[in-house]
């Protein structure tokens, strides 16, 4: 460290305080109850609940001052910490970590420990009153207290640090296993963050053992203070279950390792470090545990993963909510009825999504009533499943079911619709015919959307009377789960249509990204290039197993597993389209053609091994070129770097951020890599392959 050994952590912290920090103040007030006087500290950054309290250096120093004052006041028997309405704190001020570098991160880590420890070890009992959101350091401040209460309706308690490329470094990694045991610590510190950042509600957090008492929201603070007073008077005795420090601890670590392997492929240093910390917490004392957290945070600050995670966090938190290039939302027209051309599986999935999110009439159409009815029956069955699971009540189920209908007469179906989406066979002539038919019966302003994954929007609209109302509206499978929606602007698409598409995407709770009309848009183009490279490499002699082991921690699953999930026929079709557009870069594997011809649904059999019939269909090159996994990865990523660069040059998307957001939300590329282009920059591949970086 670059500091003099005798300078106190508080002096060092003062040196890194920046004016940019939105300071969370710590107001101390005395609350006198019979037999107990409590110094109540309120954390409040002076903003409303949309800007939660956070801890940067100045905020921690403010809290330190309040704690010192409470400890020094002889009239005060105990300290309690709570937050402004609805919020305890959302954790560290990430900007103080993002820009700081290792020394600053170490200082912030040590400062958090130094301040929070005064709550647990300052000589007076302390109470963490979790009155709402408590994430990361916001939960850790309460964990340091002698006792905790939680509001039953608190929306989110958790330690999401690992998701951000960090570890719970203000005591969480040591305190949680020592409070609730290693297994629950693994759930809180690893499993939940790696499961799309899952958090616990207040009641669940109490049941989990994170708090000693739970109270309703109507009088949480009053009841918490009265409870605290009764603890102080000795009338209430807090008992916690004994932590199992034997085999259960080993089993938990084993479970953690399994989770980390499955979710990160060992590619997330933070996840691995968190496992280490939990393992060490069994035998280490508080000093050692907290010192290990300081070291871990300092180490994390030097990983690319941290910056990448913070970058991804910013993408999904901010860019996803304000899509780049979307027209002013005031131009959007209301959508009061939706028509769907087709009643197959995709059409039915779309109907379910539209009816649940928009709650407007949705009409499925097909050539005959039987097929239309089948689509309706699918939606009804899915609604019944939601009802059976208790996700919706009977009234809601009745409402949603009544909104879905099946029709053959397009005039009846679409005459008063504002938004018609087609999900018919992926063939230009078919789609053009469909739109021409629909145009005859709809209003001049009705949006015509296509769920095409690869065809040209401009061409599809070309022969219509109103081509300006056509827009691409490309979902990802499974429609209900995948957040991404690619909104494709054709040459003629006007702003009102586009604005309506974005407003509809938002109402559907999708992450909408604007794409220029181009072959296979964003995700399928990049995945097509990905499969082209991998397919060529395998066809040239590298074993499937080697290729499948090359992308751990980058892609959500090995390439040939992904190909099986997508379906070999769809993957083939995508690559054929792309080869048609860009013959020199894209590749159609003869082996894949044979596999599709043989109607094989997957490369792997149910036993997890390569299907022998598939194996027999693979290419057998005369002079095989066998690459290592690293070579496969580097070559493939170089191809992806080239493709992403070309896409930006062609104006397919506004910025590399859109590529990364699309790959995270549409293809499951890793959050801690920052999607695709961020990772290509960090690994040096973008410069090597294209001569420059993306960022």
């Amino acid at each position: 460290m670059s500091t003099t050994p005798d300078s106190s952590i508080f002096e060092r912290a003062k040196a890194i305080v920046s004016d940019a920090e939105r300071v969370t103040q710590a107001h101390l007030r005395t609350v006198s109850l019979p037999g107990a006087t409590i110094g109540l500290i309120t954390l409040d950054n002076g903003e409303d609940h949309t800007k939660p309290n956070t801890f940067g250096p100045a905020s921690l120093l403010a809290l330190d001052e309040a704690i010192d004052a409470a400890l020094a006041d002889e009239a005060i028997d105990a300290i309690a910490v709570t937050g402004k309405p609805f919020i305890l704190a959302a954790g560290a001020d990430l900007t103080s970590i993002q820009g700081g570098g290792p020394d600053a991160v170490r200082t912030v880590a040590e400062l958090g420990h130094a301040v929070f420890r005064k709550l647990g070890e300052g000589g007076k009992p302390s109470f963490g009153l979790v009155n709402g959101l408590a994430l990361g350091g916001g939960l850790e401040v309460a964990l340091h207290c002698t006792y905790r209460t939680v509001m039953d309706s608190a929306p989110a308690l958790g330690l999401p640090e690992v998701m951000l490329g960090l570890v719970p470094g203000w005591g969480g990694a040591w305190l949680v296993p020592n409070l609730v045991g290693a297994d629950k610590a693994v759930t809180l510190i690893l499993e939940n963050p790696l499961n799309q950042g899952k958090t616990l509600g207040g009641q669940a957090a109490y049941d989990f053992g994170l708090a000693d008492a739970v109270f309703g929201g109507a009088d949480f603070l009053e009841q918490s203070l009265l409870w605290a007073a009764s603890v102080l008077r000795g009338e209430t005795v807090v008992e916690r279950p004994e932590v199992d420090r034997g085999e259960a601890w080993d089993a938990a670590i084993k479970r953690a390792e399994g989770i980390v392997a499955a979710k990160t492929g060992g590619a997330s240093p933070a996840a691995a470090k968190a496992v280490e910390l939990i393992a060490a917490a069994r035998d280490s004392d508080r000093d050692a545990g907290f010192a290990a957290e300081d070291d871990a945070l300092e180490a994390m600050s030097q990983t690319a993963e941290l910056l990448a995670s913070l970058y991804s966090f910013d993408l999904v938190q901010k860019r996803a909510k304000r899509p780049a290039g979307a027209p002013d939302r005031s131009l959007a027209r209301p959508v009061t009825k939706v028509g769907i051309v087709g009643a197959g599986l995709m059409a039915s999935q779309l109907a379910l999504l539209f009816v649940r999110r928009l709650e407007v009439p949705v009409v499925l159409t097909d050539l005959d009533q039987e097929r239309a009815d089948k689509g309706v029956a699918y939606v009804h069955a899915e609604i019944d499943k939601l009802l059976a699971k208790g996700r919706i009540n009977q009234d809601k189920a009745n409402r949603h079911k009544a909104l879905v209908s099946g029709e053959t007469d397009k005039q009846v179906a679409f005459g008063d619709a504002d938004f018609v989406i087609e999900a018919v066979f992926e063939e230009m002539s078919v789609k053009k015919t469909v739109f021409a038919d629909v145009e005859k019966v709809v209003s001049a302003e009705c949006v015509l959307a296509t769920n095409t994954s690869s065809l040209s929007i401009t061409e599809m609209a070309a022969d219509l009377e109103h081509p300006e109302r056509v827009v691409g509206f490309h979902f990802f499978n499974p429609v209900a789960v995948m957040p991404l929606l690619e909104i494709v602007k054709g040459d003629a698409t006007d702003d009102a249509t586009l604005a309506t598409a974005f407003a509809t995407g938002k109402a559907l709770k999708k992450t909408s990204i604007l794409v220029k009309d181009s072959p296979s848009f964003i995700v399928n183009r990049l995945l097509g290039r990905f499969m082209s490279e991998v397919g060529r490499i395998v066809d040239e002699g590298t074993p499937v197993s080697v290729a499948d082991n090359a992308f751990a921690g980058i892609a959500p699953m090995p390439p040939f597993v992904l190909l099986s999930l997508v379906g070999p026929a769809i993957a083939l079709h995508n690559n054929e389209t792309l080869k048609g557009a860009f013959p020199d870069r894209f590749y159609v594997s003869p082996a894949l053609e044979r596999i599709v011809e043989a109607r094989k649904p997957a490369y792997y059999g149910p036993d997890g091994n390569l299907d022998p019939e598939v194996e027999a269909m693979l290419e057998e090159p005369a002079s095989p070129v066998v690459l290592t996994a690293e070579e496969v990865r580097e070559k493939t990523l170089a191809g992806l770097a080239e493709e992403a660069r070309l896409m930006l040059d062609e104006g397919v998307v506004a910025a590399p951020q859109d590529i990364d957001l699309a790959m995270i939300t549409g293809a499951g590329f890793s959050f801690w890599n920052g999607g695709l282009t961020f990772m290509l920059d960090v690994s040096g591949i973008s410069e090597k392959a294209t001569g420059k970086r993306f960022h």
Partner: protein
Amino acid sequence: MSRPQREVVFVDGVRTPFGKAKGQYAETRADDLVIKCIRELMRRNPSLPPERVDEVAVAATTQIGDQGLTIGRTAALLAGLPQSVPGYSIDRMCAGAMTAVTNTASGIAFGAYDVAIAGGVEHMGRHPMGEGVDPNPRILSERIVNPDALVMGKTAENLHDRYPTITKQRVDEYAVRSQQKTQAAYDAGKIQPDLVPVATRSAEAGWGLATTDEPMRPGTTIESLAGLKTPFRSHGNVTAGNAAGINDGATAALLADEETARELGLPVKMRLVTYSFVGVEPEVMGAGPIPATEKALKLAGLTIDDIEAFEVNEAFAVQVLAFLEHFGIADDDARVNPYGGAIAMGHPLASSGVRLMNQLARQFEERPEVRYGLTTMCIGIGMGGTVIWENPHWQGSTNEGDSK
């Protein structure tokens, strides 16, 4: 169908500590105040299944903003009572909570309810008296109501005209005694058991906890009151010192059919005898308790001599003294407001009725020799309200003094 008369009992009552307008509740919502009272009632009476509450009547004088939206219903929902429990709002100015009690009590006596919650709230800091009112122009053009009626301080000055023997000295002495009695009651722990603490938000200072009545001025002396301004009439008698202030607070009481209370194991603190509301000249509204009490006594077949415990709301000292003078009771009679009153504790308009009842219940508990007591208050726009209660702890006719 035959309809047996059912006895209505006051099971329990609670209130928030009262606040000074712009004081401890400056950043606390009005509905939250009454919600905390409802929850405290339910917590204190765990043998009452929440679904057995048949009605929630909540009074507020100004029913807008956080005192609007059918506050009896919304407060019930926000307090966590089952959705099946209905609620409604009531307004009878200062006697709102008292009317909530008499309305629901009537429903219980009639057999429509077994158990009801009745209370009131007034956050005068957020909703000053008269906020948003639109008086009918006929009030002036046809001289239907003297304009003084809309300014409570003027009605109090008018009451001094009616009772010329009630001097400034007497009202100030009364006010000082009220402050002293309230402090003594706090010191003896007679008020706190029925208070529900309220967390007080302050963006500047952080959360605090209100546990006592903020308006109290225990050091008040005759001398300190003598110099106060008389804002309602030059060289008049009514000052901030001999009147209740501008206050925030809420109350709630649990009422039940007596048999139901016994069945559910609920305490019985008072038994309702009868009640009455009577109108008087609006510009002398402070006289209201006199005819209201006379009527209630008549309905009950009692005389004023039967009443051995009084809780008279102290909107103005003159109004209490007019009542006492009318009935021939001394200014410092020990049976009247023994724990002090609104001059010290505060008078958040529609909430005060239940505070009087809480304190009468405390008197009953401490004085089993007392059989009957009353709660009475004056009401804006010229009314009085009186509720006569019987002490369930009364030990028969063996005590001193006669009884019915």
